[in-house]
Every structure is written in C-alpha cells, then in structure tokens.
C-alpha cells in the first residue's frame, strides 16, 4: 500500500462520513433534549428525495437543499407532535417516521418521474460542485501538508466543510450558551427546568427542529452531492449508523466527529477492498458493513467504558399539578 492509496481512503472517508455527521449531530441535539430519535434514517431519506427532485425541477442545488430541509423539519414536527404534545412513545413514533419516509419517497417519486422510484440524474447546477480550496494547487507538492490540505481536504462539496464547521458550532451552542445549558438540562431533569420557569415543550421543539434542519442537510448531501439523484432507500441504514455513532461518542460533539470518521473509514475501506486480505484471514465486505453495528454493541456491552444516555431520554414530560 502506498501513500496515494492512503490519501484516497482518507479522502473518501471524509466524503462518506459527512451524511453520518449531520445525522449524528441531529441525533445529538434531539437526544440531549430528552427526545429519542430513531427517525434519523427516515429524515435523511425524505430530505434526499425532496432535495433531489426540487433540484432537478429548478436546476438549483440550493433550492433543493431548502426543500430537503423543509421536508425533514416537517417529519421532525410530526415526531414532535407525537412525542412531545401527545406524549406518545418516541421509539414507536420514530419507527413510524422511518416507514413513512421509505414508502412515501418511492410512491411520490413514481408518481412524479415514472422511473421506478428514482429521480432523473442531476447534472450541472442541480448538484453541489466540488470546491477548490485557496492555495491548494500551490501546496500540492509540499510533503504532508500538500497531501492533507491539497488532496484529502480539497475538492469537496461545500456541505462537507459546513458539516465540519457544525462540530465546533454544536459544541459552542451546547456548552457555551444559555440555550445549550437549558437544552442539556431538559434532557437530564425536565422538572428542574420547568421549575425555573422555562418551557420544557418549547425547548424540546427547538431541539427537534434543529435536528430536522441538520438531517435535511445530510439528506440533501446524499442525493445532490455524494450521488447525482435519488434512488430508492438511498439512505441505506446511515441514520442507524449515525445513531450508533452517537452512542459511540457518548452524546458529545467532538467525539461524534471521531465516531463518524471511524465509521466513514470502514465504509471507504469496504468500498476500496471488497475482500480485505489481512494475510491470516480474508475479511468479506459484509463483515466491514456490519462492523459499525458490532462495535456499537461492544460499546453498549460496557467492555469499553460505559455509554450512559441523557437521563430523561424517552420519557414524555408531564407537568405536576
């Protein structure tokens, strides 16, 4: 294996980790506020579909992005109505949202485009272009810096850089703002927040709307940047991998970045070498596909530290009277 292969792997790691990152941060906001979000997968999917179809119709990737965010936020609000307003079971609501997205995207796609549940391929401005970072060419031949800056970090869509920016942003919002403090508190002890005169319902709605926006960007990235158009079930379990990454990261933003990069790299390796020959044994690519889930189970088993979710997660809040 030479340096060029490594560079390629890291480059595609970053590309494949981006949708996971958006979904993972979405889950982070939601779960830190005490709302379990199994529906990340469905929101990614519905956003991928609506951004691809609007981008196709209008020819603008940006309008597509807005449509994707809108669709994802609508799904978030459905989850909110079910789990916050009507105090329903958050897990069941999430499951329903995933199926709703899986069914609806195909039915609507078939009705709009008659191509068996896909959108026509996107070309030109309907996709997010790859950006060239400043000085990337000049630095290309400098060792190490050239490879990292000029090749691994260069030539991605703008959404990849925005995703990376979201990590410190999330950290700052959660740990350095009043809103973030309240958000974290409402996930641990909503009664205390309520006693302080702050609306639990409003905070939780705010959290899931943020989650909707982030999932929307992640979904738009899937269909208008990573791929060129929507195909049936294109989220392919990424919402669940993001959920796994969230547990892996123990609900912390910087660790979430680490976790999604790890899982992104597993996907990149599985794509590059369908059968990974390690000398002693050959790992089939099905093993690499399953590895994120296996690692998460290992984490959950408590072999590597303990993953403790926000304490009030999954519990609808009922005001005392």
């Amino acid at each position: 294996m030479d340096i060029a292969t490594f560079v390629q792997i890291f480059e595609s790691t970053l590309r494949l980790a981006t949708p996971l990152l958006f979904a993972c941060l979405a889950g982070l906001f939601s779960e830190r506020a005490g709302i379990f979000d199994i529906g990340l997968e469905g929101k990614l999917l519905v956003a991928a579909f609506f951004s691809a179809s609007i981008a196709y119709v209008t020819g603008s990737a940006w309008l597509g992005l807005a449509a994707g965010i809108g669709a994802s936020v609508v799904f978030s609000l459905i989850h909110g109505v079910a789990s916050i307003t009507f105090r329903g079971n958050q897990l069941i609501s999430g499951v329903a949202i995933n199926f709703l997205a899986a069914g609806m995207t195909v039915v609507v796609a078939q009705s709009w485009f008659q191509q068996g549940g896909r959108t026509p391929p996107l070309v030109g401005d309907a996709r997010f272009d790859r950006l060239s970072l400043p000085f990337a060419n000049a630095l290309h031949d400098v060792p190490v810096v050239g490879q990292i800056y000029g090749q691994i970090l260069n030539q991605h869509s703008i959404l990849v850089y925005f995703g990376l920016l979201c990590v410190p942003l999330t950290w700052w919002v959660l740990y350095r703002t009043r809103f973030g403090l309240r958000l974290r508190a409402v996930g641990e002890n909503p009664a205390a927040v309520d006693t302080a005169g702050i609306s639990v319902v409003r905070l939780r709605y705010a959290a899931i709307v943020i989650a909707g926006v982030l999932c929307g960007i992640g979904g738009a990235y899937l269909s208008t940047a990573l791929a060129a158009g929507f195909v049936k079930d294109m989220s392919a379990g990424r919402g669940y991998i993001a959920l796994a990454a969230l547990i892996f990261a123990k609900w912390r933003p910087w660790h979430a970045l680490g976790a999604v990069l790890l899982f992104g790299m597993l996907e990149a390796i599985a794509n590059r070498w369908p059968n990974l020959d390690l000398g002693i044994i050959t790992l089939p690519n099905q093993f690499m596909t399953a590895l994120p889930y296996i690692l998460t189970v290992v984490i959950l088993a408590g072999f590597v530290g303990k993953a403790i979710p926000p304490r009030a997660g999954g519990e609808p809040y009922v005001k005392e009277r």
Partner: protein
Amino acid sequence: MKTMPKWADVLLVPLISLVIAFALSALVILAIGEDPVRAMELMVTGSLGSTYGWGYTLYYTTNFLLTGLAVSIAFQAKLFNIGGEGQAMIGGLGVALVCLFIPWPNWWLAMIAAILASALFGAMWAAIPAWLQAKAGSHIVITTIMFNFIAASLMNYLLSHVLRPTTSMDPATARFDNVLRLPRLHDILGLVGIDFSRSGPANIMLFVALAFCVLAYVLLWRTRLGFEIRAFGQSEAAAHYAGISSFKIIMVAMLISGALAGTMAVNSVMGGPQRLVMNAVEGAGFIGIAVALMGRSHPIGIIAPALLFGFLFQGGSELAIETSIPRDMIVIIQALVIMFTGALDNMVRRPLELLFLALRRRA
C-alpha cells in the same frame, strides 16, 4: 381512573386510528392522481375475491401472526423488540440447515424439526440484546436494531459465499427436497371437500401460528410465568418488590419473542419458495410491530390485525400490477397505522375519554 368502557378501549380506539390511517392513505392515493375507491376495490378482489387471493393473503397472515405475537410478548414485559426482522432471518438459517442437511423421511417430522431449529436460532439472536438489557442496561431497541443489520450482513455473506450451490449465481440455497413440501390449504381443505386454489402458498403453518396464539394466551394469563411477565411490564418496581427477578423476565420474554419471530421463517422459507433466499423476511418483522400495536399486544387480539395486514400485503401486490400505485403504498399505510395506534394513541384516546365522561355525567 377508568374513564372508558373496555370495549371502547380495545375496539373503538384502534378502529378510529385505523380509519384515520386509511383516510390519510386515500388522500395520498388521490394526490398521486389515482382513484382510492377503485384502489380499494382492486385490493379487495385481488386478496379476498378468489381462493387464489386468499391463498396469498393467509400466507402473509401467517407471517404476521408469528411476528406480531413475538412483538406482543415482548411488549407485555414492556420490552420493545424491533429485532423481529433479524431474528426471523436467522430463524430462516435454522430452517435451511435442517432442511438441507438432514434427510427427513416425511414432511411433518421435518416441520417439527424446522420449528424447533428456527425457534432456537431466533431465540439465540434475541439472547444477546436481552442479556445486554438485563445486565448492562443498554437499550434493547438500539441493540435489536444493530442486530438486524448484523443479521442482514451475516445472511448476505452466508448466502453468497457458503450456502449457495456452486452451479448457481443466485445468492440463495439449493431447493429443498420435494418430500419436505408442507401441505397447502389446497391439500388440507381438499380433505373435507372444499375446492381451494392450488397456487396460493398458505399452508399448515397457518394453523400452527393460530395454535401459538392460543398457547401464548394461556402462557400470559393462565400461568405464573405469564403473570410475572405482565407484572414486570406494568411496574418494574412492584415486580421487583414481589420478588420477581427482572433478569429472568427480560431474558425469558425476549427468548420467547425471538423464538416466535424465528418460527415465522418455517412459513416463509419451507412453506413459500422452499429454499432460503435473500430478504426472505420481506419486512414482516416490522409489520409485527404494527400488528401488535393494533392488537393491544393481546395474543388473540392480534389475529384480526394480522389478517388485515395479510390483506394489505396481497392487495398491495395486486394494486401494483393493475395501477401505477407502487407496492410501497402499503409501507405508507403500515407507517400510518403504527403512528396512529402507537405514538398518537393519546390523540385518539383523549377526545373519546372526554366524550365518555360527558356521557356518564349526563346519565
């Protein structure tokens, strides 16, 4: 405080939820430019209008009875087993191994062995998430989701590398011996002189599944273990105080649940294509969630919803042939049923409760 009579709780609330779900589905069909009335007619004739249709409807019903039962038993212990899909996949592995590698003299010995093997495999697949919940307190929903994906990868590997006959390109096992063909409704009903279509795959497993429903009812409401499971589901603290071991209940409930999900494969592998194919479960593990929610997790109560989903599944296939409405339409209906009978239960229940309160005050 009981505000509603029991019949309203078990019948009226799910029915209203169902009506809302169907009305919304009709709107979706209207929105994509099709006629919902005609769609309904097509579904009814396609699934219930002939013994051919019934043969498929009841075949799917059998799947949903078993997965619905699996989810219900776990629900009774307040455990949400999303892993029915994976447990049924691994159950299918058990069926295939038993059918491929043991030369059975007749179908019924093979069926009993296949039921036992699939139950064992399914239970095994549920055991690790159950153990993690009972010992490490990690959430069963997350772990069973993870195990669904691990099962899918494992089956993908086994079918494309290990169990596939060398002469075939198709990622599936060889066809089972014809001796192992399960008697279908055509054969069974023929004995009493009823003429039933030969091609529908509904088979003897339908009666086995119904028997399991009765057995599960007896287990839950007529035995000590069943009482312990329900007590644990109602209040973990009270159950603990009564000396019921939470470890035992979590393990037992999940093992039974996994075993039932596993046995679904006897129907869908041995009774259907008679070989193990990729994606043999076809989402039945998830439909079990909708069935259990509608049936209020009652082993007898799930029979009607299982039949309903059998009808939707077969009707949906017919719909996809006759109109431009894709088969995925039933996934939307399934999602709406889960949403309204599960998560938005309070939305339907509250107005009804107020109504009954008002009626009572007047009386």
